[in-house]
């Protein structure tokens, strides 16, 4: 984890590369470096500490399966670790210079998870 200054605030930067060079499957039971493990051991503690004022850097890892990304980010909403407003804010803090479509993909998972929760609530 790295800290950088964004204006007057210090922003925590989470590099997925530091968690795993080869991000794995969706669930822990399926294999190492899973989306579930990343969410529980890295994302959730960071959010509990600093809220959604964090930056998530997707660059440097070998690649991502969509299950990994969906479970890591969509799971934050489903497990109510963050609310809809926080999810919207978090989706603007995703950095992916190598493949900009990844940031869009994560954003869509956050949006889908919010929609899913809203549908359930109705």
């Amino acid at each position, binding site marked *: 984890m790295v800290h950088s200054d964004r204006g007057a605030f210090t922003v925590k930067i989470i590099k997925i590369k530091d968690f795993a060079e080869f991000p794995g499957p969706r669930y822990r039971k399926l294999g190492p470096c899973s989306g579930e493990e990343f969410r529980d051991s890295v994302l959730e503690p960071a959010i509990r500490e600093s809220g959604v004022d964090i930056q998530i850097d997707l660059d440097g890892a070998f690649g991502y399966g969509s299950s990994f990304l969906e479970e890591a980010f969509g799971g934050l909403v*489903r497990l109510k670790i963050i609310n809809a407003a926080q999810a919207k804010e978090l989706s603007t803090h995703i950095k992916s210079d190598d493949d900009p479509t990844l940031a869009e993909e994560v954003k869509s998972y956050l949006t889908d998870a919010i929609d899913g929760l809203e549908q359930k609530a109705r």
Partner: protein
Amino acid sequence: MKKSTVSPQLKKKIDDKRHWRSIRHTKAHEEARLQKHKEKLYRDIRSPWAYEVIAPPKISIYNPRDHERTVIFLENLRKAFSKHLKIRICFRDTKEIAAAGGLLFIAEIDRLCTHYPHVKVDCTHPPRRHHGKFKNESYVIESILNQIGFFKLIGKPERKVQSYPTVSCWQLSQGRVAEGSIAGALINQIDEKLPNIAKQRLYRGAIEAISNCVDHAYPTMRPDGLKILDDRWWMFVGIIMDKLIIIVCDLGVGIPSTIPKNYSEATIRAVLEFLKVSKTNDSELIHASTYLNKTRTKMAHRGKGGKDIRGLLDHYPGANLGIYSNKGCFKDGNKITKSGAKHAFALKDEQKKSIKGTVIEWSIPIGELSQ
């Protein structure tokens, strides 16, 4: 002496005698049977003769004729391992080992050798062939068997044969859990010059296919009657005819068996109606599974993997996807016309015999990957 005149004491004596004689005979008979069985086992082990399984001319599942012959060969192998102590696999007729068939064969051998360690496996080496204009000697089949680790699996020393660049790039690996580092290392080994974005796309498809194997392929025992618990997956990466080939294989229950467990009946019916399919044979169910993945599983957030498995076709117009599961075969890809227009096509084929597992294969032209 008449029966009626026999005294009760004498009758009891005779009955007892008969009773003990019958026990003696049964025991002797059983001992003789065991001795015979022991001798047979000993004879089998000592005998230079082994049960022979003949490999087909083409170990391949790409066309119906080869598919049937390869599946029969694999069935014979399973029968031989379960019933005999010594097996010899004969490659005298084998002229070709294709990628998907080769991976299926090595996965089957790996599974059988692991679970029947007492079975001695030998093989007759494939004969040299004469290829090309000058009819040069060629040891391609033996080189392939070396490369895919067949001789190591059966514990037979490898012979040094000429190595072929088209074969030496083949890489194979296997695992029990969805470990990204195995898939990543294989993709890296095959061509380090590939751009990162291409590697990321290949990795994405591979890790999702492997996750599917771990998550769905082994809900119950494989229906081959062997009662073997082996929940591994196998992966192959290689370059064949200027195309990068990635194959992921499992020896599980197959996609057609897992669909009813993972999707609601209404969803399956809706997709089949959308595809205008009335029959539900294996190839139709595989085709439906690619749509089911696009729609939803019983848990709405899941089922994103299918998108990744088909994703390479969207990025690379020359790419093809082949899914072989049980008796079904589904091929998806793009046809590029002379005018350069891209037309998507999907082919379905129902084979006579089941491979009892799933093979997912991508082939992408190297030229497109390097762009």
